[in-house]
């Protein structure tokens, strides 16, 4: 029984860690640019494929297997560079438009990236074979927990702390918070919105691609993984509150753990339960648990 619970919690928290990274990317972009980025799931998928390729290349080059997480994470973050392209190439044209058009433009990115990934990596699932087992497992309360999962959970926590520190203790974070509160004011104070938007969107993208890269040793990369994850990330940010980092953290934990429990107890419920919670939150508390005033 305990073993079962430990397994549930660890796999739930592992999933929550990945969800947090993607949702944090969604939140930082929404907070500053007021754009709900449907493409953050696609960035996650891209990160996964880039991660697979990086690890394969690393193994071929003869790198020590124990360090595969380094090329994986580097590739994940590097793939975030696509954010600049999307922001400068597309999004910047629609900042003064109705948010419907902004949403649809990110949907266009979803469509394009899904096929771009298929073109580049093919349609069959890609995985990193046995790398997951490189780090082995630890025995906890009668069950074996993969060390890799613990590493990812730890990394995600570290990133959460880092983001928190970035937002509250650096000039960049101060500018982000000011712009999220009042764009005109920030602009009047001399903040260069063009550069800020490019940076923020790239940061959001990199969080998504990193999430995708880190998940890959535990699961296979598939071209649909992006459009599936976005609805989970969507649930996370709605439950936590749009634009709130704390919301992303708590929301990810709720969604990740609940999903893992639902799958084990009553598989039919899986995401159904999550969406029902989303609806309940939107109806009863549209700001979410930690959000500001609804737009």
């Amino acid at each position, binding site marked *: 029984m305990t073993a079962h619970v430990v397994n549930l919690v660890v796999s739930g928290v592992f999933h929550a860690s990945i969800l947090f990274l993607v949702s944090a990317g969604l939140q930082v972009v929404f907070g500053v640019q007021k754009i709900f980025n449907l493409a953050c799931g696609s960035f996650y998928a891209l990160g996964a494929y880039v991660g697979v390729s990086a690890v394969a290349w690393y193994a071929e080059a003869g790198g020590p297997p124990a360090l595969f997480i380094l090329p994986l994470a580097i590739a994940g973050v590097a793939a975030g560079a696509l954010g600049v392209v999307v922001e400068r190439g597309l999004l910047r044209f629609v900042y003064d438009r109705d948010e419907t058009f902004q949403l649809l433009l990110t949907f266009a990115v979803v469509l394009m990236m899904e096929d771009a990934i298929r073109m580049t990596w093919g349609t069959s699932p890609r995985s990193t074979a046995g790398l997951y087992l490189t780090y082995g497992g630890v025995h906890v309360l009668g069950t074996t927990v993969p060390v890799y999962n613990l590493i990812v959970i730890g990394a995600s926590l570290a990133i959460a702390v880092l983001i928190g520190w970035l937002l509250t203790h650096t000039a960049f974070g101060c500018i982000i918070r000011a712009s999220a509160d009042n764009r005109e004011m920030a602009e009047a104070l001399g903040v260069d919105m063009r550069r800020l938007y490019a940076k923020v969107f790239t940061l959001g993208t990199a969080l998504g691609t990193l999430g995708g890269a880190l998940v890959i040793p535990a699961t296979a990369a598939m071209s649909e993984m992006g459009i599936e994850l976005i609805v989970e990330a*969507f649930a996370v940010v709605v439950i936590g509150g749009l634009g709130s980092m704390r919301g992303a953290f708590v929301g990810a934990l709720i969604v990740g753990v609940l999903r893992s429990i639902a799958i084990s107890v009553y598989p039919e419920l899986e995401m159904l339960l999550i969406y029902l919670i989303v609806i309940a939150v939107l109806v009863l508390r549209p700001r979410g648990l930690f959000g500001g005033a609804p*737009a």
Partner: protein
Amino acid sequence: MSGRLVLAAALGAAVLAPLVAPTYQALLMLPFMAYAVALLGLNLLFGYTGLVSFGHALFLGIGAYTGAFLTSVFKVRSMEVILVAAAALGALVAAPVGALCVRYVKIYFGMLTLAFGMVFYTFVLKFYRLTGGDEGMPFLRPALLGRSLEGLSKIDYLVGPYYYYSLAVLVLATLVMWRIVRSPFGLCLKTIRDNPTKAETLGIGVARYRWYAFVISAVYAAVGGALLGPPTGNVDPTLAYWTQSGNIVFMTLLGGFASFFGPVLGAFVFIYLQDWVMSIVPFWRLIFGAILAVIVIFAPGGLAGLLTPRPAAAPRP
């Protein structure tokens, strides 16, 4: 008057298509007509009321599954019964869903509709004993106007009676919607789209009118969804997936939400262009994503906005 000529020509072409066009092209008209019905409804919400639903595939799905259940579980084969049942169920679901959704606007409205859409999707996907899960359910060949038509081959049925049946439903749906948008009710919707605060002070109860529009659009989507079933003979959950909701908003924007016939044009171009692109390269999404991006950035009025001389009205700037 040239508008009427274009319309008459389009209708004439649609009537003649099964007789002169290759069967394959005529078959493509079926999903087009089904989507066109759904989009007429979606645009009452989008173009006329100013609300963008990102979960309207929910109602497509309800319509399609209503038909599948009736034909394959309850042995009801009458298409008229199916359409009426689809419309009624669409309205029944839309009534409470809409009552919750219309309390919000913009991104929150979009998110709430998306969440409801995903509830339905997950439900049909997971409760496979009832719905067949991801394999879907058969939508058996419906009888049209009381004739069973079992003697015809599938192709003859589809490009023959079923084609004209769909066309008749589309024409009827168009006429009804044409009246709705030109009614006092339609005018009230437009005031809400343009300025809800002002509409409210003129005594127009914004939430109530949004709810009416939501329910009507759901009925249209459900009827469209039911029409989608027979051509493939099977309905599956992808019809209700969120990307499907995105695609129908895409079609509306492609054709032009500021114009009455824009969404119909959008459905037509989407279906045929998609088929043509897929015949050349397998990656239609890449091309369509690029098209959508170009439209959003450069031509938010869509094709109808490009075709008409006066600039398309930018809705809520």
